[in-house]
């Protein structure tokens, strides 16, 4: 009703992105950075146009997206399940806390030799790294979400003798859902980051490998074009997540606030 005053979010978002592109165009044009190292938007765009017209690019994009989606799916399912189980059983929580904290900061990149050892440059390698990194994102968020259950709501469920499953399904899950969404959004981009990094370093096919090639070949505009593709993927993924969030979290304070005056 008041969207005119507030502005259309899509429009505003596009304005934000346009501002970024303009800045990238101006920085080298004004001589603030050397355009050989950071080419202006227009040059990147033309390199991007060249890339887009090749079949190899779409093949790489497909490979990256596949690794991303598969890894993310595994990580989210595993993270949510583990989070709900660990979070709702205090003993398990105490038991696993130290191990989780130990494993979490181990960088995926340090695991590359291990991954290659197990899977070579197959999809398996990338998946291993993607899953490892994004699993923790989801897990930690879900753990915090489970801890956030309103005691009165929890007791209401207990007093009506909800089954364990009922409590998870109807109380724990909805409370944790906003956290799951944050976790999902974090994991989605971490998965993308890792998918590309793995391809970059190991050389399994995908955008990352193309970036590595462009880098090694001093093809700077092409490299940036591919980076832009990565970023654009991130924006699209976020857009989709947001849409899902608005549908599933209509009841939540954070979303509710957008409806009330």
């Amino acid at each position, binding site marked *: 009703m008041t969207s005119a005053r507030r502005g259309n*979010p899509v429009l*505003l*978002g*596009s304005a*934000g*992105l346009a501002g*970024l592109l303009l800045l990238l165009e101006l920085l080298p044009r004004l001589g603030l950075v050397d355009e050989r190292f*950071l080419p202006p938007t227009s040059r990147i765009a033309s390199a991007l146009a060249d890339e887009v017209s090749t079949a190899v690019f779409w093949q790489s994009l497909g490979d990256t997206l596949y690794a991303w989606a598969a890894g993310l799916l595994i990580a989210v399912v595993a993270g949510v399940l583990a989070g709900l189980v660990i979070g709702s059983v205090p003993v398990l929580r*105490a*038991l696993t*806390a*130290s*191990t989780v904290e*130990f494993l*979490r*900061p*181990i*960088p*995926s*990149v*340090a695991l590359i*030799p*291990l991954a290659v*050892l197990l899977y070579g440059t197959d999809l398996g390698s990338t998946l291993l790294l993607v899953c490892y990194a994004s699993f*923790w*994102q989801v897990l*930690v968020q879900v753990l*915090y979400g489970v*801890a*956030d259950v309103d*005691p*009165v709501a929890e*007791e209401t469920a207990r007093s009506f003798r909800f089954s364990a499953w009922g409590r998870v399904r109807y109380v724990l899950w909805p409370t944790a859902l*906003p*956290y799951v969404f*944050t976790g999902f959004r*974090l994991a989605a*981009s971490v998965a*993308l*980051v*890792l998918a*590309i*990094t793995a391809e*970059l370093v190991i050389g399994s096919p995908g955008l*990352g490998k193309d970036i590595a090639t462009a880098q090694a070949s001093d093809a700077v505009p092409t490299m940036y074009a591919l*980076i832009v593709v*990565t*970023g654009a*993927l*991130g*924006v699209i*993924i*976020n*857009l989709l997540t947001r849409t899902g969030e608005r549908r599933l979290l209509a009841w*939540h*304070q*954070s979303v*509710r*606030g957008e409806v*009330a005056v």
Partner: protein
Amino acid sequence: MDILKKAGLAIALPIVLFAGWFWLSDGSENFYSPPLRTILTAFGDTWTLERLRTDVAPSLLRLLAGFLLAALIGIGLGVAIGLNRRLRAVLEPVLEFFRAIPPPVLVPVIMLFAGIGDGMKVIVIVFGCIWPILLNTVEGVRATDSVVLDTARAYGVTGPARLTRVILPSASPQIAAGLRQALSIAIILMVISEMFASSNGLGFTIVQFQRSFAIPEMWSGIILLGLLGFALSLLFRLAERWALRWYEGLRAAQRRAG
């Protein structure tokens, strides 16, 4: 008694896992996964006090600087974005854009602007670990109870006090979740940033071990990273406990058996 039990629970699983690892790997012939026994020996030989001073200390300093800076920027920006719908609409795609770019790809670009010193490494850390803080702060701020907000408004709790006394405390549980996550990401990025243009540091040392095929030493470095992460998260947990005692109390009050 209670503390003893907690400590017992905390170390039980690691002990089991390490014992399992030790036992399973004992006869390992594989060059890349040597027996844990060898790794532990290497650990003692590698991580001497001198090593800790020259390699671990600088890493830790960069890590802390990066983490604190990320916390500062992340919370500040997060609050602003969480409170202002229009700002959120404008910035969200841009932020999502940067969030999706892998740090290893971005390092060269950052190097362009920040050179190759510690500054570059700190920026890389900030760049990578700011996201969970930012996202959680935004969500936490947006989720502030409407009655709480109304109360604050009605009593003229506005301006800075609204921020420090109402918005931030109310969002603090979720901000803590973000900080916690950022901490381990910061460690990961510490390693990544030291893979480029570096001549000391924990990450550099591990990568160096890996390249020079000192595999037991490399594993010992990874274990050290894990230990470091564990220690830092323990510290963080203590700080969180203290800062969020109201929240823990609130949650625990009605749960505790007596």
